[in-house]
């Protein structure tokens, strides 16, 4: 038996996978933000997030959030405004809008990634913590 992957089924799978991924991210986010209790440790962590690999991961996170949010909007439109007959159109519309938002994010997040690849410093933070240093 083979599933016939159409827009609705594809949207369901994407929504579920991105949703579970976002729950994992939420746990990580709560853990990392809890380091606010120690200012120096928090700043070191933030500097680590400025490295090329983390910027790439942030772009991936951005894509996951866009997919989940826009498909959620599509679900609300289908459920509350009875747009079920137009769900395929809504799906392709969401894809187009999502791509536009993603490209905006990529324009901002990819330059530091390319810098990191060219210099071979994928993990190196682009900031350095100087205790007691000025801003």
């Amino acid at each position: 038996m083979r599933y016939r992957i159409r827009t609705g089924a594809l949207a369901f799978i994407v929504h579920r996978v991105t949703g579970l991924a976002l729950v994992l991210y939420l746990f990580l986010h709560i853990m990392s933000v809890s380091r606010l209790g120690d200012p120096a440790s928090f700043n070191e962590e933030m500097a680590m997030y400025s490295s090329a690999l983390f910027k790439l991961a942030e772009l991936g996170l951005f894509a996951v959030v866009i997919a989940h949010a826009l498909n959620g909007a599509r679900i609300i439109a289908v459920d509350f405004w009875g747009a079920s007959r137009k769900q395929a159109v809504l799906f392709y519309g969401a894809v187009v809008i999502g791509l536009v938002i993603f490209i905006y994010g990529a324009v901002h997040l990819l330059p530091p990634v390319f810098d990191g690849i060219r210099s071979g410093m994928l993990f190196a933070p682009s900031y350095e913590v100087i205790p007691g240093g000025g801003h």
Partner: protein
Amino acid sequence: MLREKGFEPGGQFIWFFHRVSGFALVILLILHFAYLHFTMDAGDGLVTFNDVMNRLSHPFFKVIDLSFLVLALAHGLMGVMLSIQDYITRRGWRMLAVGVVWILAIVFGIWGTTTILTLKPFVPGTAPEPVRKVTGLVQPAEDDEAFWPIVEEGR
């Protein structure tokens, strides 16, 4: 049915809440994102301890972040519960999975709430601040006054 005992989401209220909280989360996320990445780190590209404290010393942002935390956890873990209902059919495994989700909800809910409510007060100049490091690739322009300090000659 496990669902009838009220420990797993089901029914119209949950269905409605999932959609309403999802909508609220998108609005909160846009605010969160705009504030963090367009206002707070203005220019230097890095969110520091003092940047966060500046924002969170205001009670309005504490309320916003707390509701963000509670809504995100509730929305996300309800989604996990729905996945459990779809894929785990054995009664014992299902009860175990539902129990784990409840424990995660309580632990991370308390963890996040404590972070927001027990923050140390912001005192300017006391916390260590990261300073921009030029990584060899980024060559500042010769007229970049932010990088090259202006030295007035003849003084």
